[in-house]
């Protein structure tokens, strides 16, 4: 097995900053924005993104967590997963621009589950998707609006996102 680092700490920070700029541009500012991270690493990325946005726009951006465990379509094929708390910021999501944040976009099934979960929680005006890495191999008609890095990869390869908050360091590696 070989591991190759494709993003380092500074790359991740740069990618998030760029995504933040793109979100502000697309949304014409930070008003009505709600960031919802998908556990576990998506939540940390959403918090970082929220901090960048708040700095750029000089106003706090609500950040929450959206757990999709109970909405997955592969539950019966895997060992039981522990769900994570869903935290919807005060003010809710109705009429807001929700940006879903995840670490890796792959088959699209997680995002499908997230959209289902979201629709049970309210009715956002717009839903966008921001991911740190898009590795391709979509199985559903889903695409990301904001991508930190496109990483074309073989299905046999595995992509690992490590974050300071959960893993003690920031890096993205490909292992094959």
């Amino acid at each position, binding site marked *: 097995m070989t591991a190759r680092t494709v993003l380092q700490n500074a790359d991740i920070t740069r990618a998030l900053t760029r995504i933040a700029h793109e979100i502000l541009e697309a949304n014409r500012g930070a008003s009505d924005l709600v960031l919802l991270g998908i556990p576990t690493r998506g939540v940390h990325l959403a918090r970082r993104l929220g901090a960048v946005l708040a700095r750029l726009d000089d106003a706090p951006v609500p950040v929450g967590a959206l757990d999709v465990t*109970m909405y997955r379509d592969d539950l*019966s094929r895997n*060992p*039981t997963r522990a769900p994570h*708390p*869903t935290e919807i910021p005060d003010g809710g999501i109705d009429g807001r621009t929700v940006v879903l944040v995840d670490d890796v976009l792959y088959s699209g099934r997680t995002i499908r589950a997230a959209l289902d979960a979201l629709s049970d929680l309210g009715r956002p005006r717009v839903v966008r998707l921001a991911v740190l890495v898009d590795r391709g191999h979509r199985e559903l008609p889903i695409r990301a609006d904001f991508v930190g890095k496109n990483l074309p990869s073989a299905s046999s390869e595995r992509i690992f996102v490590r974050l300071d908050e959960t893993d003690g360091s920031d890096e993205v590696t490909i292992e094959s």
Partner: protein
Amino acid sequence: MRHLLSTADLTREQAVRILDVAEDMADVATREVKKLPTLRGRTVVNLFFEDSTRTRISFEAAAKRLSADVINFSAKGSSVSKGESLKDTAQTLAAIGADGVVIRHSASGAPAVLAANAWIDAPVVNAGDGTHEHPTQALLDAFTIRRRLHGAGARGRSLDGVRVVIVGDILHSRVARSNVWLLATLGAEVRLVAPATLLPLGVRDWPVEVDLHLDDALTTNPDVVMMLRIQGERMRDAFFPSAREYAREYGLDEERLGRLRADTMVMHPGPMNRGLEISAAAADSARSVVLDQVANGVSIRMAVLYLLLSGAEEGIA
């Protein structure tokens, strides 16, 4: 763990995990859409050889909130005909394609027999068996206590040092048994109170303190007082002389209620005999968490069904 038969089988980690998942399920209950798609296409059978509308509808609500299909097999109706064996019923359920069985039975150990035999290959949830156990009741009681004590910060916590007094017919109570094992596992200090006739043999070896008089137990500054239902026929079998004497010695009346701290929880698994083991004043007081128990029952049962039915492998890891 593939089945939930006894709280004695649960480790502290497993118990906390069930309570934590129940927190997530409780969050769902506060939403506008109270349903999750998690068990869509799965069939949960409520197999009730003994009538209990409360427990059945709680499990039914839990299964339905997880989008499972629910089939109710009830001995009171015509679906479980008198004399039909557990084996025949189980094999019928297997043929129907049940993915999980929730069983209530008047015989202790019936869920264990169902789980041990090859009649049906599905997770079994004990919804009360004879005078043995009622694990989901104990879990919902622990959940209720933890939520009251820790609110939003309850996740991940145990019940270390929480003082729980359980009063009444310990001998015949499956609720008491399940609570004793679970609360002890979670670190609570449990105290059982009953006349000597209603204490099980060997209770001094249980992980509890035992008091023969309620008034003694109330001096221990309990955080929780759990009153058990006392059944009228116990009188006839000479467990105690009269309802009046029982209420006087072991009932939570207004005067005893007044001796509790303002934040001491009063619990009852229901249905209550108002005026016997619990006064109306105690049942309706601000200390009473009886309705919380009912609401939390659905969350706990959702958590248990989710953990046992959703995965491909061992349910409660």
